[in-house]
Structure formats: C-alpha cells, structure tokens
C-alpha cells in the first residue's frame, strides 16, 4: 500500500485516495471544433509509460481535493505530489 503525500493533509495511506488517470490532459475548450479522431484521442487515449508518469489523484476519504503526482509505474515510487504545475 502506497504512502501518498496529499499536498494539504500530508502522508496518508493509499486507501484514502482514488487515482484519476493521466494528468495534464485538459478538456478541449471547444469540443465541437474537433474532428472525430481528435475527439476520440481526448476521450479514449492515454499514455501508458514504463517509468515516470504524471497522474491525478483525489484525497477521496480526506480533504476531497484533487492533485497531481509523479509516480514510477515500475517501482511505484512517488517522487512528487503537487497541486499546481
């Protein structure tokens, strides 16, 4: 079980959190302007690297705030959590 450092609450057990997938994938400001392929890319396609990965987490059973984490997908090490870029 990971020990995750919530930027507001400090280190807590992984069971208090929920992972929200890849970070820094912004919702397109005007979805209608996108063609089908570009929209599908936004909705369905995420990267899946072996190594460092920036992902979103929410402290669901705590302060309920979203933040980002840099996690290594092989070692599971979280080297940084941050609320703003």
């Amino acid at each position, binding site marked *: 079980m990971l020990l995750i450092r919530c930027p507001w609450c400090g280190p807590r057990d992984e069971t208090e959190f929920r992972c929200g997938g890849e970070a820094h994938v912004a919702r397109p400001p005007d979805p209608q302007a996108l063609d089908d392929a570009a929209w599908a890319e936004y909705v369905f396609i995420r990267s899946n690297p072996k190594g460092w990965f920036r992902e979103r987490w*929410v402290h669901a059973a705590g302060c309920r705030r979203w933040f980002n984490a840099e996690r290594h997908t092989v070692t599971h090490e979280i080297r940084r959590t941050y609320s703003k870029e």
Partner: protein
Amino acid sequence: MTAFRLPDGGRIDRSQKLRFHFDGRPLEGYQGDTLASALLANDVFLVGRSFKYHRPRGVMSAGAEETNALVAVGEGGRLDTNSRATMVELYDGLVAQSLNRWPSLGFDVSAINGWLAPFLVAGFYYKTFMWPRRLWQSLYEPAIRRDLLVVGGGRSGLREALAAARTGARVVLCDEQSESPATTSTELSALPNAVVLARTTVFGYYDDNFLCAVESDARRQRRLWHFRAKRVVLATGAHERPLVFGGNDRPGVMLASAVDTYLRRYAVAPGKRVVVFTNNDGGHQRAKTFRELGIEVAAVIDSREGPVITRTLGGRRVEAVEVGGARIACDLVAMAGGWSPVVHLYSQAQGKLRWDEKKLCFVPDTCRQRVRVVGRANGEFPDHGIEPLWEVNADKAFVDFQSDVVARDVHLAAQEGFASVEHFKRYTTTGMSTDQGKTSNINALAILAGATGRSIAETGTTTFRPPYTPVAYGVLAGRDLGDFLEPIRVTPIHDWHAAHGAVFENVGQWKRPWYYGPQMHAAVQREAKAARTALGVLDASTLGKIDIQGRDAGRFLDRVYTGTFSNLAVGKARYGLMCREDGMIFDDGVTTRLAENHFHMTTTTGGAARVLDWLEEYLQTEWPELEVYCTTVTEQWATVAVAGPKARELMAEIAPGLEDLAFMTYREGRVAGLDARVFRISFTGELSYEINVPGDQGLALWQAVIDAGTKHGIAPYGTETMHLLRAEKGFIIVGQETDGTVTPYDLGLDWAVAKQKDFVGRRSLTRPDTRRADRKQLVGLLPADPREVLPEGAQLTEVDVALPRGHGSRPVPMVGHVTSSYMSPNLGRSFALALVRSGRSRIGTELYVPLEGRAAKVRLAAPVFIK
C-alpha cells in the same frame, strides 16, 4: 521403533504432558513440542502423500520451509488446512489430520499414480489443481506505525532491535517462532519503547515499508497486523537446501539442520543410524554433533570427495542408501546441501538479488525501500568450502517435493524450450505450491541453468510474492463479516417500515423497503393498485440530494446536464440527464432552482456519492474559475412521496394552500405543522408531491401522512412497486435501462438533450458509433401470454429457440435483452422494457425470448403502457 525421545535435554517441559490426536490416533507429547517433533517422538514418520504421485512423505524440516508435512488442524468449523506440522505448536487436545490421502496414509489407493509416473510429467498442473481452503476467525486488526520493524528474532535481529531501542526509537520485532533469542531477552522486554511479537509471521512486504503479519497465540487464534515502518531490518535467517538424488523424498530423509534442531531443541532423535550427505564442510560438523548426542553416524557422504548417494531404499521409511554400488543401512539421511538466505520479503520489497558464486546462493543487493538485511539473511555465513552438486543423475530425484517435480522434469522443460525462468516455473509448477519453493527454487534454477548451458546468474530467479507462508482468508477478513461487512444506512422512517412488515432491499449501502410483505406478488399488486386508484406513499429519503450554490451555479449545471438549467425560473424544477464524456448516461434526476444562485439537485440513490465526486472533479480540475459549491444533503432531508388521485385531497388537509402547486414547481411551507419543501414532481406518472422535511422530522411527517391518508385507503409502497409504476409510464432507471453503453438517444430521450450548448458528453453523441442506426434502443415488450413475466436480463432472438442445453448447441444471434419486467395490476397483464437492436423500427413486430425448454413470443411496443 527408530525415532525416539532422548532421556534428557531439549527446551521442552517434561512435567507437562499434552494429549493430541493425529489421524484419529491418540498420542502424547510435551509442552514446547511442535506437532512435528511430537509425531517424530512417537515414531510417526509418514505425515502426508505427495500431490501428484501420492508418494509417502515425512517431515523434512523443522521450520516454515516445510514442504511435506502439511496437516489440517482442528475440527468442524475450526478446521485449519494447509498448516505445516513443523510450525504447529502442540497444545492439549489438539486434533490434526494429514492432507492429501485416501482412504488412509498407510494404504493410499492413489499411490497407483506412482506407477503411472512416466505419464504425469511437467504440465500436469494445468489439468489438476485444487487446494482446500477454510475460513478462519481472527480477533481484530491492529495497525501500528513504528520507527523500526525488525523481522526475525535471532541473534542478528535482537542485536538490531536493542541497538535502536536503546536510542529511544519505537521498535517492533516479529518472530515466527514461539521462542527466540528476542522473546527471551530480558533487556529488550524491559524497554518500554520495544514490542516483541512472538508467533508472528510477517508475510507481506509492500510499497513504502508497509508490511503485514499474522500473530497467533498458542492455540492458533490469530490476528492480522499492519505496519508502516520508517525503517525495516530483515533478519530472517537462511534455509538449508536438500540435495537432489534418487528417492530423496522418502520419509527419513531430512535436512541436516532439522535433525540438529529436533535433537537439541525438542530432544527427539529422528533415527538411530544416520547417513549424512553433503557438498560442504557443514555436513561434517553436523555429523560430529550427532555423534556427541549419541546418534550413530553410519557414513558421511561428501560429494567433493568421491561417490554420491544415487538412491534410497526402503518402503514408507528409508532403510538404506546406495553409494557407488554399495549399500549402507540407515534409518535416517541428513542432507546438507548449502544455505539459501531467506530473501522472500526483500524480494517482495522489490529488492534486487545477486548470485554469490562462492557461497552458492542469492544474496540481497539493492532496494529502493528503506530496508537493511542482516545476519544469515544477508549471506553472512561461512562458505564451508561448498562445491556445486545440483543433482545426482537418478530416477525419482525430487526437486520440488510439494509440486512433485523431479530433476528429469526440469531437463524435459529445458528441452521443450522453456528456458526463461518464469516460463519454466509455470510449466513445471516448480515453486508454485504453498511452500513457494523455499527449499526447491535454487536447485531447480541450477539444474535449468546447467541444462540450458548458462550460469545461474544469467538464468536469474523468479520474483517472490506475498504471502511468505499461507494466510487463512478468515484472518484477512477479520470481523468484516455479516453486519460488519459494510456500513448500513437506514432512513429516519426505517423502524416504521420494519414494524409494518417491510421486506428490505439493499440499494448501495441503503436499506429500502422493497415491498410490505409477507408475499411479494400480492403486496406489489395491492400497492400498485392503491397508488393508481387512490393513494400511495413512498419513503424516498435515500434519493441523493446535492445542494448547489454560487454565482456560476446555473452555468455549471448547463455543462454537466444534457439539458439547460441556467434559464430555469426560480421555483421551477426540471428533469436532467448526465453523461460521461463518452456520451453514455451515468445518472439522472430532477433539479430545482430554489433561488437565483441556489439549486437543489437530486440523483439516483446508488449514484449520489459518484455524482458528487464527479461534480467536484470538474469544478476542481477543468473549471476552477467557476464559483460553485456542492454539498451533499442527502441525510439532512427526509423525503416522503405521496402519489395517486387522492393526493390533492390529502395535501389540502395536511398542507392547506400547497395542494394547488403546479406540476414541476416547488414551494416552501408547512406540512402537518412541519417546515417543509414541497416539490410537485412525479416518478409514477400519478399526481404526486415530494415533501422534504429535516431528517429528524421524517418519521413525524410519515406518520401524519399515514394518519390523514387512512380514510383514502393509503398504502405505503416499496421499491418494487415504484419500479413497476414508473415502467408502466416508460420512465427509465439508470442502472436498469442503462449499463454504461447507452446514450440519451438510445432511450428516446432526445427532448432532454439541448441542441445549442456544450455539455459533458455532447461531442461524443455525434461520433459515428453513437449515430449508428442499429444501436440498441429502448422498446416495450408485450408477451404473447399475458401471464408470462419475462426474466430480467433474458436475451431476445429472431428465431424460436429454447435456451441451449449443454455443449454443441448452435449459436443464435441475440438482438437485445430485457431490462425490466413486471406483472401490472393496472394493465391486467405482464409487460417489459428492453433494449433491442434497431428497436424503434421493429415496433409492432415479434421476437422470442429463449427460456428453459421453450421460447416466449413477445410483441414490440412503444415503451409507454399507461398514457
């Protein structure tokens, strides 16, 4: 009689005799014995049959690495299978039985498998594998945060624990044995900041120094521990390796270190005349000890000096060994094949291992977690001049005793191309039994390396995974059973329902009245009739309620609902659908504008938490510029829904002035003397009012409604009737008519989707896939037999076929499925809702529902049965 108790010595208490039963046989041992040592003291050698060949097996070790002596301890509901006799502390009245034998250990019918051995080679696992399992009770589950966790209470572990504890650090030391240097250390026990847990096996080492352990008492009551340690020290010692030669699995062939332990700790001599087989100086040292303790050493066979043991002779007990054509009589063979550090936890922690060419073992190398390995677990032992003897070329030379893998299986796997250690392991099942190959992995790996012409370092090792030793499911489940499995949520009116015969249904964590019993069909027919012809009342308090406030509340709702809410007048309510970004429906409900910047949102009962999370996610991550505050108020309000033609009369009596509320509007006022919010909305299609009062007044409101409604024939109704009533009107239920693959258009809810604004999921509704004409669409079904209530979930076909029986039936294309199905007292017949491929264009045509032995014919209709 060959094994026997020594007249003196050992760490047993001879003044305390303990009686126990093994396979129904009454036996005696002493306080301080394990089941294994007591059995040996009684000359009971045969303790199991092997899994595949059903060969007789005896105790091989004296510890957690035991591979043969698997027993079930206890009886009835307290039967604990998969215990190792070497780790079961003896207590008075203990009852144990051997595993994997029929009809008895002595006469095992399946031993015939032994003759078929040539056919039961590698790959057998894929066809047959089943282990018994049993729930076990545990006490509770403590969690503890400590500066230092030491695993292993031997000399190295004790030294580390003392060093840290003396500085004031909070230390926990766990040791799997009942007794160890750590448990007997008076200095450690005197330190208030140190905790020593005996009989405690750390079985899992997870991320960020999170470790789990099972603590047991002397009578095997267990509990689970969670640790989060700043630092971990592993002092887990080393396991001696067996040697691989013919018949090395015969009872009476043991690890030399185990013979030593039985002699010195338990004062049990497992034999009178021993042959020591070794590939290092350690075997000679053992022989010297054995002689000193009065055991005759017939020979020390040292592979470095000459001939080796090719095979053992005997039946259910070793009687002799063959060495270079000569026979040496003996009743015990002690194997000293070198040592393997116990690196399982280190490997679980993602620690890397390094092959030590001199000591012939894997030792810890590097690990990203804050862990240190000390003592024998770190390979800190003399090499004893060890030279490789990985196998003696012979029949029945066992590598993995528990999986019945012999050396020839390893060669066969290599020949067949299983050179990767991970593939090899799965193909031969080496190391995949409950002992996880504690005594077999290195021998197997070395033989594989030899067979594929690589070094052991090149061949690599498999990854160890938790648990280190088997853990009963009951220990993990703990008290999270029955009523403790999950929180139970009840409404303020719950006790009234229970007192009036309600049968409850679980909706998420909520208990909702399903119907007011005793008999479901009669109850639903009665409740549904009352709601349509007179008056019904439903406890709708479980509906999710979210209070939404803020300057941008209207704009926000426009983005999360498919419909428009910013233009809703104050005091008005509107039905809304929510989609995910892929265009699929995920919740629905009615939202009311209480004030300019204040909305009251309702969600499905099961979706309330999900919706709130989802709203928060968009507010925080996509639109932080919006000023909106979402607060769950589900439990702040009790909701009573009155429905039926007499609802207006009722309201006129208990809430004068509110009875004329227009449809889809809202007003605050007093109902039965209580401050209330009244919504004129309807999920039944009847004239209906949803009355909200503060939660603690819910029961008072309910009682007032029942009292005033009695003269109108009021009937409380449950969720089943609610579902029936809404289905008659063609209203959907999210999760019943939808399953995450259904769009608003699929359900014919085009009217709820705004055309001129963006919302979550909108763009996906024009993707090619969501525009397909042959998507599944919502339709009504009228069975040809009006008494036929179709099973929900049943498939629809174009051909008249029954459900297939067994194999060999021809597949039939399925064109849809039944989502809801009822017997309606208002229609006087059965009906159903279904999702059917191109359903709307099929209305008026017929389809079939395959059932047991027949198919039910149905006609497709518009999904509205009562206008």
